[in-house]
């Protein structure tokens, strides 16, 4: 009798826990579905002018049409290549510069105020100057990506290096490690999570700067397409393009999260 009751009460929390597991995604999916349905009705019935707000089925149709014509593929490729060519060097240079900055007090005194100023400045404001320096070609946009990404990477790497526990350095040093080995075995792995946080920040900032630069001066790219379609008076292509940009950002950030969980599983608890 008591045994039976014990089993019943043990089963109940388990059922509740399994519901909790699906509850969050369920509510999320329902909310999105409801929003899309409402948008579809309001837009397609012209309750609000559809050229202003468009609606989901029109956006999907526009996406398919733009893909078929090849316009989307060509421009996305241009933007993607510009992004990669600016971002990879920003990661490499940013980590090296952040490390140097954290390890050299004099260097820090020299450039810290400059970086603090650059970090809070909107990169978009630099577009005219960069165009004057590098012309209207892809070099300008690669430079924009680099500059927008490199500053948060430098700042986060330097902060991460400064927070590396004295105990880790002591452990490595006690075995007779030289400066290089201390950096390789204690400082860089210890700063890794902070470096990744900087790279994640850099992704967001450089996507914004790249699209803005393309809108300002370009013949190709997603930003250029946004510029073109903004004169057409139609909302649907803009939603398509914005959707592509945010999907790209989401994919990058999630890929980094996965990579970080793989490379730094110790972050789970300390």
């Amino acid at each position, binding site marked *: 009798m008591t045994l039976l009751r014990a089993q019943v009460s043990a089963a109940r929390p388990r059922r509740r826990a399994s519901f909790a597991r699906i509850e969050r995604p369920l509510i999320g999916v329902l909310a999105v579905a409801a929003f899309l349905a409402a948008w579809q009705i309001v837009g397609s019935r012209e309750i609000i002018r559809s050229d202003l707000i468009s609606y989901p089925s029109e956006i999907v149709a526009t996406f398919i049409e733009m893909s078929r014509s090849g316009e989307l593929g060509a421009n996305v490729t241009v933007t993607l290549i510009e992004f990669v060519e600016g971002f990879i060097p920003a990661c490499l240079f940013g980590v090296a510069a952040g490390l140097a900055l954290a390890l050299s007090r004099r260097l820090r005194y020299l450039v810290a105020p400059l970086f603090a100023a650059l970090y809070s400045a909107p990169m978009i404001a630099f577009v005219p100057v960069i165009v004057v320096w590098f012309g209207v070609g892809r070099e300008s946009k690669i430079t924009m990506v680099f500059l927008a990404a490199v500053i948060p990477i430098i700042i986060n790497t330097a902060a991460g290096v400064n927070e590396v526990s004295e105990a880790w350095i*002591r*452990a490595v*040093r*006690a*075995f007779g490690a030289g400066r290089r080995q201390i950096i390789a075995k204690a400082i860089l792995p210890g700063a890794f999570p902070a470096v990744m946080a900087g790279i994640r920040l850099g992704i967001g900032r450089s996507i914004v700067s790249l699209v803005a630069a393309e809108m300002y001066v370009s013949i190709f790219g997603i930003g250029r397409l946004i510029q073109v379609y903004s004169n057409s008076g139609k909302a649907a292509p803009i939603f398509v393009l914005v959707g592509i940009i945010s999907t790209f950002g989401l994919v990058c950030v999630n890929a980094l999260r996965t990579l970080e969980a793989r490379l730094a599983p110790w972050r789970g608890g300390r």
Partner: protein
Amino acid sequence: MSHLVVDGLRLLYEQGAGGEDFLALDDVNFAIGDGEFVTIVGPSGCGKSTLLMLIAALLRPSAGSIRLNGRAVATPGWDRALVFQDFALLPWRTVLKNVELGLELKGVAPSARQEIARRHLQMVGLRAFERHFPHQLSGGMRQRVGIARALSVEPEILLMDEPFGALDAQIRQVMGSELLRIWERDRKTILFVTHDIDEAIYLADRVIVMSASPGRVVREIRIALERPRRLEIRNRPDFTAYRQEIWDLLEEQVRSSGSWEEADDAASRAG
């Protein structure tokens, strides 16, 4: 033959303009024989941990010399392996990789490293945990990893800086007898710093008693208790006599230098 010789060691922290200089250690002399287990006991702030850092060459003395097997100690190296109170494990490395750290820095070939590390994990009873990360282990297990890491490089001397100080009283006693069990196997020379008088007597062939501000050796006491030792030995009259002798020394010099608190102040000022 003496193995480690510490001669006229002095460490002065210079505070610069305005601040007071602090003499952490003054004229510290002692020698340790090959295979001897020596403990250093003293109040907080007597510079006993500082002394260990000097022997590890993580700090530079203001005067005096340290010789290991006749060679002057100048730079850190795996010939003096440290075990730290805070364990100092690398959280991004597995248990096995943590033990391999010293071997990497010693320049042991990758193929040999794993085998050596596994053998030492076996010795401290953690072979089954080699794929765990430090944060998944208890304090006592973490320090076993610390001990395996230090022993794996086959140092000439093991330097232990209050290694069980962060552990609960019961775990502490168990770890002490574990350490003795491991030590009995190869009789590695050990210099072990503690502020726990019972721990100091239980482990040692010889106890070095230090005074605070400045840190000095006040007496060396040979512990004539037979080995292997069991935990119950702590209740024997000869053990309690040692305890009384050390306690009298410490009480006397703590009184003469002020108080335990004042000694702590001095230690924190020294950083």
